[in-house]
């Protein structure tokens, strides 16, 4: 019995959400009195994961893992779980994680819970809190099978550090070209941008910003703060911004520490994607905008005037 964590990386580096997942896995392993093992696929181990709580780590570096195929990744994790007798598998709920987890659930004949937002309760059975109804509710999900798989929402568990070094375990990897059942033709990554799901600070703009010509105000504030940018659905529908920035019930769900919404009314479908943010600030000309009810701080005013003043103040402080 052990806890296995998929240590996901991007372009050869572990993601921040990976450190969260390992910290989560370690806490759970301590609670269950067992070992915490990390498995890294396609990353040579740029950092020792003992610093985040892993007791042991398995590194698979076969070049077949260079491109992402859900099947081959799931197979690698499954074979590791079986060889090392792991019964709980922890995965970050990224696009990659979400493609792998259900395949693993079938391979392991496991119970699976996605959208996990808190530590498992293992006193009486095994129960986790998950988001439901697009963040409008929290469900307590009990996992009944012996084997369990959890996908953890990024930014929902804090990273803990340990002064420990993990032991590297060598396992035979049986991956073969025939395990790859789809082919990646080309990959396009937006470089130099903070991925929205991992961002701790997010500046978001809505229809109230009037048009693309004003988005420099959002971007300047974001760059001063080191934040990612997001937008409401109509803004991406009108192609003012790429759809990858659309947050809400039919867009991306985010849980940053800070969400600043400028010119967004706060429709229920928008709130569904952002209400998990720790601190919410709203800038809107309309004092009756529903978003103010869901906010911690509000400024009733014209975003086109307020945003540059916020940027200037940040630059003054950071100087």
């Amino acid at each position, binding site marked *: 019995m052990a806890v296995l964590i998929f240590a996901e990386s991007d372009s050869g580096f572990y993601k921040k959400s990976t450190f969260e997942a390992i910290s989560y896995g370690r806490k759970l392993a301590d609670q269950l009195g067992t070992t915490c093992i990390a498995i890294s696929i396609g990353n040579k181990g740029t950092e020792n994961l003992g610093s985040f709580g892993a007791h042991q780590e398995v590194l698979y570096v076969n070049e077949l893992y260079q491109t992402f195929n859900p099947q081959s990744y799931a197979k690698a994790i499954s074979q590791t779980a079986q060889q090392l007798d792991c019964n709980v598998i922890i995965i970050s709920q990224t696009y990659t994680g979400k*493609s792998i987890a259900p395949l693993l659930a079938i391979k392991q004949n496991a119970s699976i819970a996605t959208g996990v937002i808190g530590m498992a309760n293992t006193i009486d059975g095994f129960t986790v809190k998950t988001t439901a109804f697009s963040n409008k509710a929290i469900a307590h999900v009990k*996992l009944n099978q012996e084997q369990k798989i959890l996908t953890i929402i990024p930014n929902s568990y804090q990273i803990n550090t340990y002064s420990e070094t993990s032991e590297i375990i060598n396992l035979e990897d049986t991956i073969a070209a025939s395990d790859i059942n789809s082919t990646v*033709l080309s*990959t396009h990554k937006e470089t130099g941008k903070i991925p929205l799901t991992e961002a701790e600070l997010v500046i978001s703009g809505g229809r109230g910003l009037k048009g693309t010509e004003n988005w420099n105000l959002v971007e300047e504030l974001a760059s001063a703060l080191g934040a990612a940018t997001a937008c409401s659905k109509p803004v991406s529908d009108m192609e003012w911004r790429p759809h990858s920035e659309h947050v809400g019930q039919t867009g991306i769900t985010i849980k940053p520490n800070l969400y600043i919404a400028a010119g967004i009314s706060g429709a229920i479908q928008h709130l569904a994607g952002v209400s998990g943010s720790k601190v919410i600030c709203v800038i809107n000309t309309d004092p009756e905008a529903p978003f103010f009810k869901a906010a911690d701080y509000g400024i009733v005013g014209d975003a086109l005037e307020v945003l540059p003043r916020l940027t200037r103040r940040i630059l003054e402080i950071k100087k």
Partner: protein
Amino acid sequence: MKILVCISVVPDTTTKITFKDNDTTFDKSSVQYILNPYDELSLTRALEIAEQNAGTVHTITVGESDCDPIIRKALAIGAHEAYRVDAQPKNAPFVAHQIASHVKSENYDLILTGRESIDYNGGMVQGLLAELLQWPLINVATEINYSDQEITACRDIDGGRENVKSSIPCVVSAQKDLCEPRIPNMRGIMMARSKPLNVIKAIDLPEFTEITKYELPPSKTGVKLISAENAEELIDILHNEEKLF
């Protein structure tokens, strides 16, 4: 070309979520149900692909008879035939096993699902199904094309997108931007009445997971307003009190 589209029936996006029986059950009374928005996209794209390839489109829904009006809507949009597995969709593995069992009795070339259902947001059915059938999975696709026994698609990845191809049969899930969803017209609505809606019996499965309780997320205690003239004060608070940067 025979395509199966998985259709889920979900509460309207404006639904106020409440619970009953000591917060153990979702209160369905006065909830308006809709066709899951992502499934409207996959259905539309399935119809487009079928039209170009002289194909047929079936839909499948795991749900009780109250889903029938939504299933009829899918038929009105253009699906040729519908299946309903007569059971409450308890959780994603339950749904995926039911669908897989139907697929094994038919010869589909392609299964399309939505990226997720907007009620439980699991996003799991497509992956569970792909693995149960041992078919390739292309998840969260903004483009899906078919030619020469091959699917090419563009999928969202963390921080970007990727073009991928797969042989058929395979499972692909639909993301926003895939297409403009079709809406039923009068003729479609008339024709839907006589299209087959086959009800099939659910297979027995173990209880993989159960929801023991619901709660509402903590709500904000009240907004602190800062006047626009002193907008900079917001930054000072975020810096000094909230210590966010």
